[in-house]
């Protein structure tokens, strides 16, 4: 007799993850489940562990205890409980399951926009150069940069670079897309074009976890907002609930109050 899988299994299952940098505990038993197609935004004061949590999901950071699973597979460690790091090859394979977009873009400056997207397609996904080029052009079109395929990153504006960054991540067809304060390094007038791309990906059903300070975007585009404070999940729920006035969470309330005071 086989056990049938649960009706709605979590695509990303973070459970009890803790991590310390020296004596500073940056993550304290964090648990978070994300189901397929969900857009989860993570908000919270700086130093609350949001970015660290995101970086643990694709194992750019290791964690001390707990487990992070994508589609049921432990991300950074070989077996549940053994806490033995995966081999370099395995880790690379696991990381290719997630896409990541960085605050500082991190485009490869020696490659063109198309080249940035093609590198992973060719070396990780094993596509031919013609196939990879076609996929790169498709995604550059999606982010409105079809005409910039052969431009080097230095020739692009910040907003354009970040859109290439998004295209580079999604072209790999990741199961989940991680967005780490992707608009924080942008001039205000360039934020909109980048968020527009994220919104369209959300409409396509891309599963996303997004650390952001863009409250309006979090309210409009996310299915769930997670508020982190002091390395833990302090509150989580639908935007209306988390950003509403009813919520009974002192820390969240003062965070939002301070946030509104400085942003409006």
């Amino acid at each position: 007799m086989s056990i049938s899988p649960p009706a709605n299994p979590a695509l990303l299952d973070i459970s009890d993850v803790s991590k310390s940098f020296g004596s500073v505990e940056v993550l304290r038993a964090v648990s978070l489940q994300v189901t397929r197609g969900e857009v989860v935004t993570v908000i919270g004061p700086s130093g609350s562990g949001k970015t660290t949590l995101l970086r643990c999901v694709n194992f750019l950071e290791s964690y001390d205890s707990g487990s992070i699973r994508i589609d049921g597979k432990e991300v950074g460690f070989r077996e549940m409980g053994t806490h033995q790091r995966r081999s370099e090859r395995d880790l690379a394979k696991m990381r290719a399951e997630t896409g990541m977009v960085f605050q500082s873009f991190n485009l490869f400056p020696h490659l063109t926009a198309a080249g940035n997207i093609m590198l992973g397609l060719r070396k990780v996904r094993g596509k031919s150069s013609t196939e990879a080029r076609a996929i790169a052009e498709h995604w550059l079109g999606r982010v409105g940069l079809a005409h910039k395929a052969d431009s080097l990153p230095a020739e692009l504006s910040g907003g354009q670079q970040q859109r290439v960054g998004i295209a580079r991540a999604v072209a790999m067809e990741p199961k989940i897309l991680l967005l780490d304060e992707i608009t924080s390094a942008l001039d205000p007038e360039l934020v909109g074009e980048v968020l527009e791309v994220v919104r369209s990906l959300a409409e396509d059903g891309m599963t996303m976890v997004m650390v952001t300070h863009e409250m309006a975007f979090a309210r409009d585009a996310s299915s769930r907002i997670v508020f982190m404070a002091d390395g833990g999940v302090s509150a989580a729920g639908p935007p209306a609930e988390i950003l509403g006035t009813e919520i009974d969470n002192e820390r969240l309330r003062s965070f939002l109050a301070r946030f509104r005071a400085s942003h409006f």
Partner: protein
Amino acid sequence: MLGQIAYALPFLAQGFAVTLWVSLLVVVLSLVAGVMMGVGLVYGPAPLRWAVRIFSDTIRGIPILVLIFFVYYGLPAVGIHLESFWAAVLALTLFKTAQVIEYLRGAVGSIPKGQSEAAMAIGLTFRQRLAYVIFPQAFRRFLPPWINGVTDAVKGSALVSLLGITDLMHAINQVIGRTYEAMPLYILGAVIYFVVNYALSLASRRLERRFSFIRE
């Protein structure tokens, strides 16, 4: 005078060939060893990093002449007997390797951490990250000091004459011994070394321009 020098030219040419051969060996061997050890210094586990660090600091702290004599006259004491040619090549290679390690560390270290992370995030393995992301960017910064080092290697190869190896320098000294025409022969020697090194710097400048894709 000119007749005597013309008569010695084939002999000098042989010496020049030895100079080029020593330089080439040293440059290629130190490049391979230095890049591998430099990668160990930047990315390796702690014991490897320490080992490379100690190697590099020790070698760079010793005058190259001492190193040459040590390898040739010192190593036989522990049972390692090398022909003078290979002793000289080994000593020069050790010296140059230590420099290549430092050039590599500097060049790779100047690439922002975000580049490695972005490369990891798309699923590239360590070797792929080095080959497609880190080295192509580090190359441009590695090249100028390295080419400088190559010209140093060509000049430094003259030291092998001290072990009695007939390189260009030694050949010149021998011809001077026979003809007593020190001035014109040393000038000839200087011109030959200069031409080789100047050609190298020109080539380097052209290469640098070719790899100037990154505007900073």
